[in-house]
């Protein structure tokens, strides 16, 4: 009898403790980031979309080889003095896994990942991107250097 009374009292106390926890949280300020009005700055290492400095690219194909999903495709043309320049360079966001391997293998730092993360679209073909086009990401808001 005494034990069951004790059980009941500890039970009720545990319930009250739980209520206190939720009640306290009720009056702490919300941790919500009100997204469209407030935006968080992306960290330095943030891996957004793949971007390219075309002038730095030496068409070595390292990034294309390193890509685990074959989302990058490149062709080049040979200029006279053994120098290669990129002819086409396409990037398929649909396949990209944002792993950053291409960025890491690039010997000249031509390919890098920018800070764009708000990439929503109605049409799928907008996800197939010509990296040599300077206005390629204009549709999506971004703050990364051009």
């Amino acid at each position: 009898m005494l034990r069951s009374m004790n059980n009941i009292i500890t039970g009720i106390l545990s319930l009250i403790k739980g209520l206190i926890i939720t009640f306290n949280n009720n009056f702490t300020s919300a941790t919500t980031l009100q997204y469209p009005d407030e935006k968080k700055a992306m960290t330095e290492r943030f891996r957004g979309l793949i971007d390219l400095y075309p002038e730095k690219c030496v068409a070595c194909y390292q990034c294309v080889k390193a890509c685990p999903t074959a989302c990058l495709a490149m062709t080049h043309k040979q200029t006279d003095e053994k120098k290669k320049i990129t002819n086409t360079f396409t990037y398929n966001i649909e396949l990209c896994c944002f792993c950053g391997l291409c960025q890491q293998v690039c010997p000249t730092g031509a390919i890098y990942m920018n800070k764009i993360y708000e990439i929503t679209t109605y049409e799928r073909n907008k996800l197939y991107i010509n990296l040599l086009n300077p206005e390629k990401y204009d549709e999506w808001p971004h703050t990364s250097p051009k």
Partner: protein
Amino acid sequence: MAMMERIPAAGLIQKFPGGKFFLASSEAVLKWGKASSLWPMTFGLACCAIEMIATGASRFDIDRFGAGVFRASPRQCDVLIVAGTICVKMSDCVRRLYAQMPEPKYVMAMGNCAISGGIFYHDTYSVVKGTEALGIPVDVYIPGCPPRPENLLLGLMKLQEKILNEENANNRNI
């Protein structure tokens, strides 16, 4: 106006003075209602499901957009967020879930896997190459692997925009 033509007395109302205005404004209200209350389905397939929960959780709080009521029953949902890889074994299930949802229904393809198979596009024998390969029309594509919660929220806002600007979508009416 297409939505209104289904209402029996619409023709009659139009004849009254101000009837057209009334119909137009009421249609705007209806669209607003549809757009402001998009209940998603509790349906996580893979990795993106964790980000979907994170979007629902305190930091990002999808409930601010009125879309926080995750219903487990497809009968009570408006949006199917395809969050993850669709596999061959699962494909019939996804198709059935979409069919079980009442009109008007919308589909968001969250993550590259749901758009095209993504990282599992090549060299796999058991992955369906995206939601559209199942014959399910997609309204908004949210790329990312997985997309950040902000991106999902942006997708939701784009979907709301689409509903508000809906002219006469013949397959999605009342």
